[in-house]
């Protein structure tokens, strides 16, 4: 078997993804210089952070060979129950800790279903997503949605540190940490091994089920935290608030050059994918095109991004 990764082969798709993000950004800026203004950049970074944080969980799940379709409902769960609980008198810190614990628990349920019960990831996460959807519809019935957004969530989403959004700094810290864990720790290497070939990993002594189940826990926590931050930003919560992140999080991973079949990719690539997709969504006022053309463009960029990352990988492999 080929080595799991050489430095260049692993980084090539990531570089391609960043090049694509830069190209979209340059294009928009040349078209309308205001795109690169400080205020707009801050907005873009905040939007990209929501997608990037939700995509971190999705990336880890996909890397280990799965999918998490419950992400949008986990985001809604984080938002709706945050406002519900804090407006009901629960201290902010307790509510947030409880939400993170719930996210981990729901993720664990996904992980158990996928690994120990052997249910296909798409089916299992679709199922838990549906149950969460029902729970949110039930919980949203009698609660005022815009009451009780805690100050912590607001400052997380709105705060600025030396002109840089706090949320973007948090995202950067997460990305550095994720990059370190994935490349430097044994859990990271086991993740790649499981995604690449789970039987071989199992024979080499990796506890495949545990490694894989943990990815869903990570995804659950990431999505709930994303939901809390998103609620802080929009100042209210609603059941469908996570919907754009269902396919958005998977698209960010794919555009970022990771294989959606698992085993290949880097979180930095996903970061670039999240930036690219966010820039594209922000092109609407720049190009003065309708929402319809934006969607067509969005689909084209997914194909382009994936094709580019494949091309970059081939280029590097051909040189060796």
């Amino acid at each position, binding site marked *: *078997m*080929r080595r799991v990764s050489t430095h260049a*082969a692993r980084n090539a798709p990531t570089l391609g993804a960043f090049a694509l993000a830069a190209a979209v950004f340059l294009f928009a800026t040349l078209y309308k210089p205001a795109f690169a203004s400080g205020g707009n950049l801050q907005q873009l970074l905040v939007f990209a952070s929501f997608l990037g944080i939700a995509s971190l969980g999705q990336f880890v799940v996909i890397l280990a060979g799965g*999918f998490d*379709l419950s992400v949008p409902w986990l985001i809604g769960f984080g938002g709706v129950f945050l406002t519900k609980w804090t407006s009901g008198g629960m201290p902010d810190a307790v509510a947030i800790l409880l939400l993170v614990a719930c996210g981990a628990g729901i993720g664990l349920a996904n992980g158990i*279903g996928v690994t120990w*019960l*052997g*249910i*296909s990831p*798409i*089916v*299992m996460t*679709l*199922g*838990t*997503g*549906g*149950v969460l*959807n*029902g*729970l*949110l*519809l*039930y919980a949203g*019935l009698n609660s005022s949605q815009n009451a009780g957004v805690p100050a912590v969530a607001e400052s997380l989403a709105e705060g600025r540190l030396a002109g840089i959004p706090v949320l973007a700094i948090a995202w950067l810290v997460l990305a550095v940490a994720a990059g370190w864990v994935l490349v430097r720790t044994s859990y990271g290497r086991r993740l790649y091994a499981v995604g*690449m*070939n*789970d*039987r*071989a990993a199992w024979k080499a002594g990796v506890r495949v089920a545990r490694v894989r189940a943990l990815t869903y826990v990570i995804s659950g926590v990431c999505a709930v935290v994303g939901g809390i931050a998103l609620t802080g930003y929009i100042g209210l919560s609603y059941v469908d608030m996570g919907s754009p992140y269902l*396919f958005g999080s*998977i*698209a960010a991973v*794919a555009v970022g050059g990771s*294989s*959606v*079949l698992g*085993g*290949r990719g880097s979180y930095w690539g996903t970061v670039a994918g999240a930036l690219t997709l966010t820039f594209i969504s922000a092109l609407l006022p720049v190009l003065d095109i*309708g*929402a*319809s*053309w*934006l*969607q*067509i*463009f*969005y*689909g*084209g960029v*997914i*194909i382009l991004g*994936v*094709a580019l*990352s*494949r091309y970059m*990988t*081939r280029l590097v*492999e051909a040189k060796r």
Partner: protein
Amino acid sequence: MADTATPAPLQTRRPLAVGRLRGDLRTHGLLLGLLAAVVVANVVAQPSLLDVNQIGLVVQIALPAVLVGFAQTIAVLSGGLDLSVGAILAVSNVLAATWLSGAANGADWHLVLILLFGLAAGAVNGVLIAVFRFEAFVATLATWSVFNGVALTVLDTDGGLAPTWLTTLVTGQTAGIPTAYWILAVVLVVWMHLRRTRFGMQLYAVGSDEERARLSGIRVTRVKIAAFALAGLAAAIGGILLAGATSTGQPTAGNSYILPSFAAVVIGGTRLGGGAGGVGLTTAAVLLLVLLGNFVAALDLDNWVAVVATSGLLIAVVALRALIDPARRGDEA
């Protein structure tokens, strides 16, 4: 992408599903038993359902979902999946509500154009997947976005008007029986014929073991493109029927069909990963889900109950099937 470096996963070789028409009676029994139970519960809750026309209304509501289920099943049988079926349905739905407005009778060449669009849109998916080797999930995720955009260029909000012949076709009666029954019957007959054709056999063979199918002389690329083109066609017909049922066009109607179509395929027992299952099973599952929603509404319960019940059913059926037939455990990818 995977084909560049990922070594092929160790695959358990299983017998080709070609010609295995009956499948496993025990697992199908579970589905049919559930369907019967929901029908009985429904009739007890609302005796008016015994009226042929009342059930016709239920079938009429279910028809677009049945055709999207048809599309999804074929995509899954070929070893892929199709996230764009809902968007293709949306495009044909808005086209039916705008292009067909002026037509006085059913003989409108625009209708052919809409069907051709479905075929072509599906073929684009097939080419991306089979020729350019995009993972089905990514390819159809991209075209989902593109086709959604196309639907919005035709109509940016709900509107348009479906021609009268179309609404009477879908909502009316033929030979004293609601036409919806006839359409459903035609869909099933078409499928029963299709699976016995050369293409049908090859579809199962490709989904079951692509490499083996290739070695035995099947043109895998062609079969896959045809499968996705056919899926696009089925989704387009679903969109036209939806326009007939609601008599308007909704550019965002498609999204609500995507995830339920997976649920229906899985509850029906078609294996994700391809090679086993069928449209008949998916259709039974679609009717099961529609009747379940109908039952919850009849009991005057809130919408969330139906949502939870659907998901609970999905997980329960998959888990039960794993218990009944351990050989199937974990063989879905």
